[in-house]
Structures are given as structure tokens and as C-alpha cells.
């Protein structure tokens, strides 16, 4: 696990930022409908997050899949914990679980 230098960078990002979204494109300009959907959900909830564009770095794009043991992008981390991809975020938001996760982990909601 530790032989990949990209893992160190990923760990640093999820340690340093309460909510991190590994995505295609930027939060302002998502390059993929699934990434855009998660950005929209987080924005709607008023959650501040750091979006990391995996398209700018092929090593990161492959590395995050190995790091999370998850084959697709986007990937959401909250307080260092992997939450899931677009489907899971959408389902958890619809059921209210995502809001509860943010509250339980003391993530500030803007509203």
C-alpha cells in the first residue's frame, strides 16, 4: 500500500481537508455528469469541500482507484472516511443519511 507515492498525497489531502471530492474537472466546471451530480448535492447542502481534478494527473486518477479500492470517479471522503461514489451519495442524500454523516462528523453546513 505504501509503495505508491500518490497514496501519500491522497492521505495528506483527506487528512488536511474535512470534505474532499476526487472528481473529473473542477467544482466550477465538472467534466462528467456523475462528478457534477455530487458537486450539486454538496453545494445544495451547503457543505464546503475541496474538489480535486483527477484528469490533471494520470497517476492520481489511477492511484485513487487503488487507494479506495473503488473503480470509478467521483469519490467522496468526509473526515478521512470513504463515503462512496455518485450513486451512494445520491441515495444517502435522498434518505437523509448524508446530512446525518456531516452532522455526526461535525462538518459545518452553510445553512
Amino acid at each position, binding site marked *: 500500500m505504501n509503495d505508491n507515492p500518490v497514496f501519500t498525497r491522497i492521505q495528506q489531502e483527506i487528512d488536511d481537508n474535512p470534505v474532499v471530492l476526487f472528481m*473529473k474537472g473542477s467544482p466550477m466546471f465538472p467534466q462528467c455528469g456523475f462528478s457534477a451530480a455530487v458537486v450539486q448535492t454538496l453545494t445544495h447542502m451547503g457543505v464546503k469541500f475541496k474538489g480535486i481534478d483527477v*484528469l490533471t494527473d494520470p497517476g492520481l486518477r489511477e492511484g485513487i482507484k487503488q487507494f479506495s479500492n473503488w*473503480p470509478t470517479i467521483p469519490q467522496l471522503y468526509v473526515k478521512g472516511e*470513504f463515503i*462512496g461514489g455518485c450513486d*451512494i451519495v445520491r*441515495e444517502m442524500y435522498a434518505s437523509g443519511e448524508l446530512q446525518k454523516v456531516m452532522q455526526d462528523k461535525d462538518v459545518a453546513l452553510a445553512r
Partner: protein
Amino acid sequence: MTMAETIHSKLTVALAPTALRVVDESHRHAGHAGARPDGETHFRLTIVAAAFAGKSRLERHRMVHTILAAELADRVHALSVSALAPDEPAAGP
């Protein structure tokens, strides 16, 4: 066999689902990153199986990912999954 048929077949063998729907949505992503001219890159599946009972969302998705690892490593670029146990209602829109 189409990719949708392969996915259907593998999940059927591995999980004995009581309901399974595999939809090829590649045409909706034509021309963007990950799409191929000959399609078969983007799929949506709804699967109901007793094997999911008592499992978290992450665990359910990872079960599906493991069964379809070869396809995901090959041409399947996006896989939308709704994985339910038999007594659970389908998620909303």
C-alpha cells in the same frame, strides 16, 4: 454476447438475483471522456439479491465491482449501481 449480456450473466451466476436490470446508457455519453465510438462503456444496473441483506452500501457496490472486475478494467468506464435486498423498497428518483 453484448457487454450488457455479459454483465447480466455474471451477476446472475454470482448472486442469484430475484430481479436484475442492466441498461446500456453509452449513447447518452457519446463523445465524452471514456466513451468509445462503438459504445458499451456506460451501464446502469438495478439488482435485487438476498446476498445484499445486512450489507452496507459500500459492501454491496464492492461485491458488484469484484464480480465485474474484468469488465471494469476493460471497457466499462461507468457503472451506476442500485443494489437492494429483497425486502427493501427501491430508492427514489
